[in-house]
């Protein structure tokens, strides 16, 4: 495949960059969002955003993130011809 010419990123380089993207999203939903849990809850009587993110929102994000990662990684493996037969 043309992408494998010298100088082009290798399968592992691209796997690593996919990992970093995945971990960036993971970091956001694991830590950043909950740091602002109190702010997301808003004033009394408004939608409890902090509660939602801790109780459901982050979990939904993680499910989507894993399937996104898996699809991307599978495509990457096929592109470089290293997928299983």
């Amino acid at each position, binding site marked *: 495949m043309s992408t494998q010419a010298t100088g082009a990123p290798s*399968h*592992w380089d691209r*796997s690593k960059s996919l*990992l970093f993207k*995945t*971990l960036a999203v*993971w970091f956001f*939903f*694991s*830590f950043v969002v*909950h*740091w602002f*849990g*109190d*702010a*997301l*809850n808003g004033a*009394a*009587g408004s*939608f*409890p955003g*902090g*509660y*939602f993110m*801790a*109780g*459901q929102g*982050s*979990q*939904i994000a*993680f*499910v989507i*993130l*894993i*399937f996104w*990662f*898996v699809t991307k*990684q*599978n495509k990457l*493996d096929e592109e470089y*011809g*290293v*997928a*299983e*037969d």
Partner: protein
Amino acid sequence: MKLEGGFINNLSKVYGIYTLGFLGFVIIMAILEQMGVSAEKIGWMFVGFTIFIYALIGVLSRTMESKEYYVAGREVPAVFNGMATAADWMSGASFIAMAGGIYLKGYPYMAFLVGWTGGYVLVASLLAPYLRKFGCYTVPDFIGTRYGGNLARFCAVVILVVASFTYVTAQITGTGIVASRALNIPFTAAVWIGLAGILFCSMLGGMKAVTWTQVAQYIVLIIAYLLPVFWMANKFDYGMIPQLAQFDAVLRVQELEALHGVGTLMPTAEAQAAAGKLAALKVGINDASDTLMAKWKFLTLVICMMAGTASLPHVLMRYFTTSSVRAARQSVGWSLVFIFMLYFTAPALATFTKLSLLDPNLATGIIGKSIADVNSIEWVQKWSQVGFVKIFDGNGDGLLQINEFFMKGDIVVLATPEIAGLPYVISGLVAAGGLAAAMSTADGLLLAIANALSHDLYYKIIDPKADTKTRLVVARILLLAVGAAGAFVAAQGLTGILGAVAWAFCFANSGLFFPLVLGVWWKRANRAGAIAGMIGGFGAGFWYLYMVQFGGMTPWLGLDGLRFGMIGMPVSLVLMVVVSLATEAPDEETMKMVDEIRIPKGKAVLDA
């Protein structure tokens, strides 16, 4: 039953029939209840019937092949492995204690929800596919082969045993709590009965049997968790789908909490002394604090639970059973889908239970009512008798205030059907679900321990010439011994369910997280570094836990016994990197091996 194309090709059919059969059983029980069969007999039938089914699956899956015993023949499809992992993962703590934790401790407790789900992102991206390609039977097998040498393998075995054993005693305790309640027998006897059931599932068929019982257990536990919540939400008109309807309920609960003085009206010392270990409601459902310390505690708990998820061997080894690397990856996603089903329901359950108890407009509300009336309610009497509920009229006004009602968190799940006035058959179902959750996790853990001892310690270190038959006999004897030891410790009733669970996560992440992850992602990591990382990280974590828990040391930066991985992990990382760099790089062969596990194509490293 004769199946064309064999068991594996008919899984959907088999488990579809099983699910319908189970629902049919629940309906029959409901009819029997209407006909006047006693609650106790229905409890016995629920527990007896489900344990019988699991044991039957266990016996049918018996095997004398090591590949089937250790990794279920590597032919478990991604979705079913996801279900088995979910049952393996969701312990008595998730099922019995989680909603109660949210009920009593509110927002800070939800760090567990975030940690126990986000950890799967790490499993999927950092570890599972690579370990599957490696083709090992156990987690120490990976450490031992990647880094080479018996010492590295031995260290991994020790950490695995300590972490998993801490965890398994909590699970056997959970089995005992549920069985003793449902069957009305003493706790100690219930512990041993539970163990017998657990061993029946795993003894004869190892991982193969545990896989197929775990799928069956997942189906029972998820039905048992969801059905009462849906029923309650619809009965009280909270909304059709409780998980979505809970947000309005949260706002209402916050109003009620303010009304009843939650957070301001604290129990008196005298009342608390009378209530012993039971707790009054002291924090609101959604008090996300804006202090730095509260945020730090939330995030550190999240980190510890996530890294622990990615280093607990009984979870990782589930991904050794899939048919391919691709399936292993996919399977992590499915695991989280099935776990999510329960976890996003837990806060809803906590919220609705709170609403039921706190809302004076509801028939179920007890706070603010007269104590004489509350004491005559059936579920209050029943759960007071077994020491799960305590009412103490501190100010002697004859009315029940929020600081006069004490409870054990577990009743949020166990007693909710009764609190909401659902038929007893639902309580029986919940008991069966709690038992399934605790048993499935105990099975996975016992197998992880016994396999590490039989495969890594006995076969790889002590007697490499042992034939398959001897190895499998040794594996089973160890399983019995470890199970008995676990039940013995559990019968002493030393720790609550959750304390021990959080410890297990921190033991695992202190000792194993970095050696596992860097084994895949950093080629330069070598034997000396891994050994230093394991011993140093685990040792530091252990020491810190000991000092905080028993040595009277003030926790550093609020890092209590639940968070000692925050001490162990950095020590492990630093030692591993420094020692690796200070010593010789791994040899050519190891480098090649790492290259090999980084691509899915080709044979598993250990098969080659």
